[in-house]
């Protein structure tokens, strides 16, 4: 695919090849390969426990793979840490959001990327920017000085997304960004993803259980099954019904085998 003569194709920003990862006796991923082009939105689906989150955590440097290659912007890299991946422009919205309840909204938004006027935190700058980012995103939060513990699930999600979006990420990994959201808040996040796509600067991998929502925003869908990618189609070539069938068929097959 890389050797193709087609020059109008956007370049690949990320490619993972033959990634394997086990935790003790459990093989989470056996052989995963996928690619992501510049400005593309890739939907990653799969049943619970298929290893989607593990894959995301390998791409963002949180876990180190047992085998396989990661290629970022054409260069093979060994991601040593989350910070390292971040320095290459890879940023993540985790399923658990990675928010600290005891901290304010703006401190969470700038967690580990604080604006510092050495040796002190520049709280005023962070407050101002946090306010502006949230306004830009259309997220309604009374005060950026509120403790995150006081916010609703959707607001928390929005903060986690805003945090990654505004970190100048080139590759954004969204692990179930719609999980805790109401319909309105979910639409807000999808709009945001669409905005980012239109700008064409950011490439996104999005994990979601709601296939209709995934298909709304993504260019391509990959199915992760049995520790590997078993399905790769463009949006136009697939449908919610087909995706649902794929996942359910696997479950049925298991059940008939077992029972």
């Amino acid at each position, binding site marked *: 695919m890389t050797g193709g003569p087609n020059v109008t194709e956007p370049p690949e920003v990320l490619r993972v090849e033959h990634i394997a990862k086990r935790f003790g006796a459990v093989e989470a991923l056996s052989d995963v390969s996928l690619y992501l082009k510049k400005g593309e939105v890739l939907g990653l689906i799969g049943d619970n426990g298929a290893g989607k989150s593990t894959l995301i955590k390998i791409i963002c440097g949180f876990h180190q793979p047992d085998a396989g290659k990661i290629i970022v912007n054409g260069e093979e890299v060994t991601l040593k*840490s989350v910070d390292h991946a971040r320095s290459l422009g890879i940023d993540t919205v985790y399923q658990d959001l990675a928010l600290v309840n005891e901290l304010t909204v703006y401190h969470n938004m700038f967690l580990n990327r604080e604006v510092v006027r050495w040796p002190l935190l520049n709280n005023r700058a962070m407050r101002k920017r946090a306010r502006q980012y949230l306004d830009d995103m259309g997220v309604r939060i009374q005060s950026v000085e509120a403790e995150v513990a006081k916010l609703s699930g959707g607001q928390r999600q929005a903060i986690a997304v805003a945090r990654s979006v505004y970190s100048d990420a080139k590759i954004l990994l969204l692990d179930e960004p719609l999980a805790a959201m109401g319909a309105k808040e979910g639409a807000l996040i999808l709009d945001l993803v669409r905005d980012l796509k239109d700008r064409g600067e950011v490439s996104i991998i999005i994990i979601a259980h709601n296939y209709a929502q995934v298909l709304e925003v993504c260019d391509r869908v990959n199915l992760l099954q049995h520790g590997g990618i078993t399905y790769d189609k463009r949006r136009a070539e697939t449908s919610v019904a087909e995706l649902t069938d794929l996942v359910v068929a696997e479950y049925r097959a298991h059940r008939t085998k077992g029972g």
Partner: protein
Amino acid sequence: MSETIENQVAAAGGPRQPGGVGRNLIVRTAFDAFMRRREATILLVAIGLIIYFQSARSEFLSHDNLVNLSQSTAPFAIVAVGQVLLLVSGEIDLSAGATFTLAPFMVHYLIDFYGVFPIPAIVLSVLVGCLIGFGNGFVTVVLKVPSFVTTLGMLFLVGGIVLTTSHAFPAQIPEAAQGTIQRWFGLAEWSEIIWCLLIVAFFHVVLTRTRWGLHTIAVGGNLLGAREAGIKTTRIKIGNFMITGGLAAFAGILEAFRTQTIDPSLSGADFASVMFTAVAAAVIGGTALAGGSGTVIGALLGAFVLAELRNGFNLIGISANPFNIILGLAILGSMILNVYLANLRRAGRT
């Protein structure tokens, strides 16, 4: 008292009445803002105790007694500052009392047996405290032994080293350290409390205004989340263990210089008391044992309240024995009040 607080908060949080409440509202808002600060409760208790003891015994606020109060606040407050940082990051150091006892012996050994100059000897002894803290941190974070157990072991280990090396005999303050240095580091009337206030001010800023403080809260509030955000959680925790060890060592040196003797008995039956008083001060001051929140200034006030109680009871003529009853009740009461007030704060507006 708690009932009025509840009413005030409820009233302030409720819908505003139209007109006629201007001044009332300002007072109430100010009160509200004050009560939302974690240190508020303990400050009120401290002031209440001052008023009570001063009205019972007029010498409570005399110069001599203020010196007494400051001297029985400072060493515990200094150790408590370290405990606050540790508690906020989700750990505890039970060995701080042993380090407190070891440090002045280190000063004594270094000066009298190895001919080190006094100031470098003090610095080295504080660094030994940091090293003990590093050991605590390493075993806790890297070898994954809960800090409660790690530091319990370290308490006996360090206490045992003190008793073995000193043969359980007290030592004199080294001659080279007597005079100016001893006065600067503990002997002069206000020396301990000045060191204490400097340390409290410094670490208050560290905890509330720096990346280190923010990451300390993040690590204690959501360890996995902090790690996912790329925070070096190991470094934060071990660092806070080292700070605690260093502060305990420094407080021990100040206290030895003030009392003009280096006392190994602190590592015996009393070795836990320094640490427990410090943890009690932190907890009374509003630091949660569960991690994620705490205040250095609260710990200072907590240590001050404990000193007031000890000293005031003494003046009134109540024996030292019921003091522990009061201490126990104070810890229980303040914890219950803290949980209760935290809920109120959370329910209230931001």
